Structure formats: structure tokens, C-alpha cells
């Protein structure tokens, strides 16, 4: 059985080398778990999950997107699906898209089976 308190600790492991936050949320934007670096406000997580879920819904018309990579002037973000949920990692410019994608892939692989048991 999945332990909800363990989720932020799992997400936190991605927060290094420029990664500012890792979020797990529903496809409607409702936040399930988040981990942000010290100094970052937790409230930002809700805003990010809302915006990113909207982006995913816009692009994923055929439900076949595996990764969404977002490059901005001051930072990057990567989004992927974990069963019926969305996982988003975002960071400073120093957190390159390839690094974010690899971290997202690792967390996704780790959470896929436990979350499947919960979400069935």
C-alpha cells in the first residue's frame, strides 16, 4: 500500500543540481504531493500544477504524449505521466532539459507500480 507521507520524500530526491521543485498532481491540476527546495514557497506548487495540467490537456489531444519539455528564459520544466497522474520537475536554467527528463523518468519508473495499486 502506498504511504502518502513517503511521496514528498521520494520527490525531494530529485531536488538537486538546479531542480527547484517536484510535483505530483492529478490531470485536473489538483496537487497530491510536492517537494520544493528551501526558500521556495509551497504555494507556487499549486500554481505550477494548475498551469502545467492545462498545458498537458491542450497538447495531449490523443493521449499519447510521454514527455513535455518546457524551456523558458530563466528556467526549465519537464512533465510526464505516472499512470493517471502528472509528474512535473522544474528548475533554474542550470537544470538542463535532458537532466530534468532523466530525473522525471527515474521517479516515474519508481512510482508507477505503487501508484497503480492505489489508483485502480
Amino acid at each position, binding site marked *: 500500500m502506498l504511504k502518502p507521507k513517503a511521496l514528498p520524500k521520494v520527490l525531494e530526491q530529485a531536488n538537486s543540481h538546479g531542480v527547484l521543485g517536484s510535483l505530483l498532481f492529478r490531470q485536473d491540476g489538483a496537487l497530491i504531493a510536492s517537494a520544493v527546495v528551501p526558500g521556495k514557497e509551497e504555494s*507556487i506548487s499549486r*500554481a*505550477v500544477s494548475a*498551469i*502545467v495540467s*492545462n*498545458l498537458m490537456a*491542450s*497538447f495531449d*489531444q*490523443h493521449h*499519447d*504524449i*510521454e*514527455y*513535455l*519539455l*518546457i*524551456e*523558458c*528564459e*530563466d*528556467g*526549465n*520544466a519537464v512533465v510526464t505521466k505516472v499512470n493517471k497522474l502528472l509528474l512535473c520537475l*522544474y528548475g533554474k536554467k542550470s537544470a538542463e*532539459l*535532458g537532466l530534468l527528463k532523466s530525473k522525471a523518468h527515474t521517479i516515474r519508473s519508481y512510482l508507477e507500480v505503487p501508484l497503480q495499486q492505489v489508483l485502480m
Partner: protein
Amino acid sequence: MVEITYATFLERVIHSIPGVSAVVVSDRDGGILVKAYSNAFNTDNVDTSLGATFAVASEQAGKLGLGKNKSIINFHRDKIIVYINLHPIFISFICSSDTNCGSFTSIVPDLQRGLDGLSKAISKEDDN
């Protein structure tokens, strides 16, 4: 000096990056300005709403607190779509799933130079 059309310029871009099948340049309303396809590309595969979707998405992505959005890359099961924001124009590349996405970072200055006239014309229209 031989002047080339925007379509010819985009065809050269297609040939310069292995895996790129189509390029569509659109304005912020999604209206297609110019497009180019490789010979093998099936034009039925083009979703004409690509540009409109990206223009809106790019604006939203700019509110993530990471600065203005520069590009978005979608990894689909069987293809990759690369979107580049060169406001006021937006460029969409449809590519095969093994395309090297890093290549697009290096061609952005060339795209800006090559499509500068088009970009300025759209800016003027927006100002009027």
C-alpha cells in the same frame, strides 16, 4: 544576389536537421504564414491547430515563474513536435521520434535571421 522565398528557406532547414518532416510558421492566432514539408511527409498528418495551441500554451508557460517561454518539445509515442517561440511568429517542427532535439537550440539564431522580414511584417500588422 538570389533571393529565396520563406518556403525555400524552411525547406533548407528541414534538410539541415535529420528527422524533421514538416515546418509550420504561424502567427499568435494560429494562422499559418508559411510551411514546408519533406517529400515523404503525408500532409494529412498536419494538425492545422498546432500554431494556435502553441501560441496560447506559450503564453501560459510564461506564467510558471521561469521567465518567458522560449520553446516546448512534445515527445509523442511515434513523433516529436518542437515548438519555438519567436514572438510574434511561432514555429512548429514535426519530427520523427529519433530526432536530436538539441539541434534546434543551435538553429534558433538562423531562424530569427531568415524569418526576420516576416516577423517584422507581422509586428507592423499587430501595431496597426
